[in-house]
Structures are given as C-alpha cells and as structure tokens.
C-alpha cells in the first residue's frame, strides 16, 4: 500500500492544509475560530509525520503523532477554559475587543 502513494502527494496535502490553517488564524476574529485553525495546522504537521514515517518504514512517526494528539486534547481543554473565563469578564470572545494585555 505504501509503494503506491508518493511522498510528494502527502507533503503537498500537508502544506496545503497548513496554509489553510494559517489563513484561518489570520483572517478570523472569533477566538474559537482561531483556535480551530491552530488545530488544523497541528493536523497538517501530523499528516507530514505519518507520511514520512510511512515512507521511511518506521513507526516512530505514529508514536509522535499519538503524543501530539494527546497534548492537543490537554491544550484544547485549557484553552477553552480560558475562553470561558474571558467571556465571563468581557462578554465577548472577539479578539479585536480583548485587549487585557495591551497596556
């Protein structure tokens, strides 16, 4: 199965997915949408790891992706808790209106 999928296809898909994630993080203004875009970027990195691991015939890539997914779960829970706390104070999660750290 591995021989028939060239590594270039995997890397191209990974790069395109990462670019979509960058675009989302730059263009959206809701904090949750920016967070979702960061998740997309992380998944693009995961795809590249799996592709390289599959092309090199090792399983280390899958191990790293396993760790990345678990850490993403921890990060999502803490990030969403921060959003809930910010929403209690400011009644919004629009990043243009949240400037707690500016001055």
């Amino acid at each position, binding site marked *: 199965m591995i021989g028939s999928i060239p590594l270039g296809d995997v890397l191209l898909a990974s790069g395109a997915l990462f670019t979509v994630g960058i675009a989302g993080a730059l263009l959206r203004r809701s904090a949750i949408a920016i967070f979702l875009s960061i998740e997309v970027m992380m998944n693009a990195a995961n795809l590249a790891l799996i592709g390289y691991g*599959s092309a090199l015939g090792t*399983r280390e890539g899958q191990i790293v992706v396993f760790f990345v997914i678990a850490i993403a779960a921890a990060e999502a829970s803490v990030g969403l808790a921060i959003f809930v706390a910010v929403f209690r104070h400011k009644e919004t999660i629009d990043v243009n209106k949240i400037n707690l750290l500016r001055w």
Partner: protein
Amino acid sequence: MARLVFDAAAALTILFAAVMVVHRHPVKSVLALVVSFFGLAVCYVMLSAPFIAAIQVIVYAGAILVLFLFVLMLLNVGEETREREPWPFQRIFSGVALVVFAGMLLGLLRAHGSAIATPRAALTGEIAPLARLLFSRYLLPFEALSVLLLAALVGAFVLAQRENRP
C-alpha cells in the same frame, strides 16, 4: 488505486478545512472541521496507520470537537460581526504574507519532496509492534503524558469555575 483514494480524501480534508475558515457561524465551522478530520483519518488508513486513524476519529472528532461544541453552546456565541476594519492594511498584509508563505512552502516541497521516496521496508498496519514500542522505549513519555492530562484537567477546572470565594 491507493493513490486515488488518498488524493480524494486529502482533497476532501482541505476543502472542508477551507469551508471551516470561510463560514461565519462557529457551529458550522466546527461541523465542517469534523468532516475534515474524518477525511484525514481516511488518509491515515491509506498511509498504513490505522491505529492513528482510530485515535483521530475517537479523540479529535469525537472528544475535542465535541468539547468545542459544548463551549460554543455555553457561551452562546453568534455569527462573527463584520464591521468596518479600523486598519484595512492588516488584512492586505495578511493576504500578502499568506501568498508568500504558500509560494515558499510549495517551492520547498518541489525541491525536496521527492528526495525520500524509496521505502526501505513496507509498513504493515499491525498495532502490536506499535504497542510494544510505546510501552518499552517510550514508556516514560507515555507516563509523563498522563501527568500532563491530569494537570490540564485540574487547570481547566480552576480556570473555568466561578469566583465566588471571598
């Protein structure tokens, strides 16, 4: 045939990620991302990593995105408002940066992407060797990960609770 399935799944993934970016309603964004992650799971199966595909569906699409949906329901966030930008050059600069970044990335992939195209040994989709690796050489990171998840649980609880203490 495998390449065809992989390319179709990758195209579906990228398409629905783009749908996530352009949709203004956050719930629709999350649902588009669920479809995108299912496409990514198909990609992982085609790259002979079925365990990671299952994890992707169960943890990412099943747990993390449902957590997003719960928080959206809790906060009652509506559609993003599109008032006039105070500084429209921000948007222009971000577009230019995006084009430059995509060009650099594609150039890099064209230059180096096909350098490692020769698989040494074909990887089978068995899970037992993966588990053996995870519980022998990577046992310490695995246990550290459980401590990290506990810390994240406690941290999320502390951050999100109401401040009703004196």
